[in-house]
C-alpha cells in the first residue's frame, strides 16, 4: 500500500495542522472569509480539520460595500450550511463613523480603507488570531511572510524583524492587543488551489466561470460595470464573455476574457497563463513596486 501523500494531500495535511494548532492555542481566532476562491478553500480545510464537529470560530467578511451579488449569495449560503457565526466588518460604517475618508473621483477605491475597518474589528471583538487566505506565490512581499505572522498593537507587520519559523513549531505568543495573522495556505500556489477545488469538489462563486457581463476597459483591465464604478470619459461598456481570476472589491478587481465554463477549462487556462493573477486583475497591486509591502505593513490582509 502506498505511504506517500500526493502534493495536494501533503499541503492539505499541513494546512489542517496549522488550523488545529490555532484553535488549540488561541482564545479568539477568526477566519477572514471574502467568498473568494482562497477563502473557499480555507473554509473547506477548517471544515475538515474539526469534522464531525462545527468549526470552533466565527468567520469575518471585511465588506467594502462594492460586492458582486453572486459572491454575497455564496457567502451567506456557505455560512448557513456550516452553521457559522458571520461577522461583517463594514467599510461603509467606518466611513460613516469618520474613521476613514472616502477617496474621490472616478478611480476611487476602498481597497486601502479596508485596513482600518479590519483592524477596528479585530480590536472591537478582541480577536487574537486572524486566519487569512494569503499565499506566498501571490506577490513578492508575501513570499517573505511567516505562517504565523506577528502584528503589534497597531496591527503593523515588520518584515525585517520576523520570528524564525522552524519545522512545524509555531510561536503564537503575544501580548494583549497584539495579534497573529495566520496563513494556512502559505505554501499553496494558484494552480494548487484550482486543482484542489477540482479534486475536492469545492464550491466557489459562479463568477469564477465564464459568463457574459458588461465591462469597461481601463488601465489594461476589464472592470465590471456596476453602480459603484465611476465613469471615465470615453469609456464604453462592452458585453463580453469573461471570468474572474480573483475576487475582491468590485471596483478594482478585473475580469479576463475567457470561455472557461468548467473547472477543467479554468485549470487549463491557469496552467497556460503567462501573467500572475494579481498582475492581471488587481488594480490595487499596481500602485507601486512595493504596493503590497506598504499595505501589509499597515495591517492589510
Amino acid at each position, binding site marked *: *500500500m502506498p*505511504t*506517500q*501523500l*500526493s*502534493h495536494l494531500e*501533503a*499541503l*492539505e*495535511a*499541513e494546512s*489542517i*495542522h496549522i488550523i*488545529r*494548532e490555532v*484553535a*488549540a492555542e488561541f482564545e479568539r481566532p477568526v477566519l477572514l472569509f471574502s467568498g473568494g476562491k482562497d477563502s473557499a478553500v480555507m473554509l473547506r480545510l477548517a*471544515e*475538515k*480539520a*474539526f*469534522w*464531525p*464537529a*462545527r468549526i470552533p470560530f466565527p468567520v469575518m467578511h471585511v465588506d467594502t460595500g462594492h460586492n458582486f451579488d453572486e459572491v454575497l449569495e455564496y457567502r451567506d449560503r456557505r455560512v448557513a450550511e456550516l452553521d457559522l457565526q458571520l461577522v461583517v466588518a463594514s467599510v461603509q460604517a467606518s466611513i460613516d463613523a469618520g474613521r476613514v475618508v472616502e477617496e474621490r473621483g472616478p478611480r476611487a477605491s476602498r481597497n486601502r480603507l479596508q485596513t482600518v475597518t479590519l483592524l477596528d474589528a479585530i480590536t472591537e471583538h478582541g480577536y487574537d488570531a486572524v486566519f487569512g487566505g494569503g499565499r*506566498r*506565490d501571490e506577490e*513578492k*512581499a*508575501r*513570499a*517573505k511572510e511567516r505562517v504565523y505572522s506577528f502584528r503589534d498593537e497597531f496591527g503593523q507587520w515588520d*518584515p*525585517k524583524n*520576523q*520570528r*524564525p*519559523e*522552524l*519545522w*512545524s*513549531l*509555531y*510561536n503564537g*505568543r*503575544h*501580548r494583549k492587543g497584539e495579534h497573529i495573522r495566520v496563513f494556512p495556505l502559505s*505554501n499553496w*500556489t494558484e*494552480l*494548487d488551489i484550482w486543482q484542489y477545488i477540482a479534486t475536492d469538489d469545492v464550491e466557489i462563486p459562479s463568477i469564477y466561470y465564464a459568463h457574459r457581463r458588461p465591462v469597461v476597459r481601463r488601465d489594461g483591465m476589464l472592470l465590471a460595470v456596476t453602480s459603484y464604478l465611476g465613469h471615465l470619459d470615453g469609456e464604453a461598456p462592452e458585453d463580453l464573455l469573461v471570468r474572474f481570476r480573483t475576487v475582491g472589491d468590485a471596483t478594482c478587481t478585473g475580469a479576463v476574457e475567457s470561455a472557461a465554463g468548467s473547472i477543467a477549462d479554468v485549470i487549463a487556462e491557469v496552467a497556460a*497563463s*503567462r*501573467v*500572475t493573477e494579481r*498582475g492581471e486583475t488587481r488594480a490595487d497591486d499596481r500602485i507601486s*513596486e*512595493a504596493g503590497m*509591502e*506598504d499595505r501589509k505593513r499597515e495591517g492589510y490582509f
Partner: protein
Amino acid sequence: MELLRFATAGSVDDGKSTLIGRLLLETKQIFEDQLEAVERTSRDRGFDYVNLALLTDGLRAEREQGITIDVAYRYFATPRRKFIIADTPGHTQYTRNMVTGASTADMALVLVDARKGVLEQSRRHAVIASLLQVKHLVLCVNKMDLVDFDEGRFDEICAEFTDFAAKLDIDDLAFIPVSALLGDNVVSHSPSTPWYEGPTLLHHLEHVYIGSDRNLIDARFPVQYVIRPMSHDHHDYRGYAGQVASGMFRPGDEVLVLPSGFTTSIEAIDEYGGPVEEAYPPMSVSVRLADDLDISRGDLLCRPNNAPVVTQDVDAMICWFTDRPLREGAVYAVKHTTRSARARVQHLHYRLDVNTLHRDDQQHSLTMNDVGRVSLRTTTPLFVDEYRRNRATGSFILVDETNFETVGAGMVLGATAP
C-alpha cells in the same frame, strides 16, 4: 505528484538568485508581468543584463540595498514534482536563516563559485544541513563558464568538498557543474561539459529518492486538539486530532498513552467524512480510542514496545538566533511537538565552530548565530527521540519569556530516562 522541499544556500555573489531565477524561468514559473517588471527595474538601475535576482528580492529594503534579508519561499512544478524552495540569504543572520530553511527541507542545494572553490561559507552550509539532518545535498559548482568549463577545476572542488563532507552526517552527496547565467546543466545538458555524465540539476531534483527519508518505524502521534462535537448525530464522539509525526497507525493497534502510561487500542482513524485504513506521516487525522481515557493536547500516542523517552533532562544541540545570549541558568519557554513547557539551561558543554567543527568548551554563553551543545531541565516531562532518528519528536524551539521572540532551535541528542 510528489512534494520536494529544498533549501538553497550560497555566499554573496555566487549566483544563487540567478540560479533560482533560471530554474523558475526555464520551468515557466515566471510570468510575463514579473519578467517585464524585472526588465524595467534592471534598465532603471542601469544594469546591462536582466537581473534575475530582482525576482526573489521581495522587500523594499532588499531592493534598495541589493541584498536578501530574509528567507523567501519560491514554488515551481514539473509534471513529476512540486517544489518548494526555501531561499536563504548567505550573509546577514546566515545561521538563523539557513537553519530555518533547512528545518523543513528534504534537500540542501549549496552553491560555490568555480573560480573561488569551497569557501568557509560553503563548509558552514554543509555543516548546518548535516546538523539539521537534511539527507540529500547537492553542490552546484557555478560559473563554470568563467573557468572555461574545465573538468580539472570541477574535480578539484568535488574532491575538496568530499573530504570535508566525510566528517559530516550526509547520506547522499551530488555534484553538478553549472552556469546559472547561461543555463548550462540547469535544465538541459550542456554541450560545453561533454565530460560530465551526471544528471542536470532539474533532473536530479525530479528524481532524487526521498521515499525512505521519513521514519515509518516509530509510531508517534502527538495529540493536538480534542474533537468533541457534542451534537445530536455525534453525541459520544471523541476524536484525538493531530498530525502523524512518524510510523504507521491502524485501527486495532494497541497504543500506549503518554504521560499517563495507560494502554488501549485504536478503534478508528478518521479523516473528513469517515474512517481510513491507516495513517502515516504527514497525515492530519483524528484517532478514536477503545477506552475512555483522560487525554488532552500535549499527550502522545505510541506503541507499548516502542516509546520515546519520557524525561525532564534533555541533551541537545541549540542554534541561537538573538543578540541576547543564551546563558547557563537561564529559563526559556519550550515548544516540543504539541507540548509546552519551560526549560532551564543546566550546562553549556561547548560551542561548535560551524566552519571548522572545532568544539570550544571554554564558553559559557551562546550569541547570535552560535551553535552549541546544552543540557536542559524541563518543568514537565517531554516525550523525545533523538533528532537523527525522528525530526518531529527530536526538535523543539525556545522562546524568550520576556519578549516572546523565538530565540533558539533545538535538536535532541539524547535523553536521560529518570
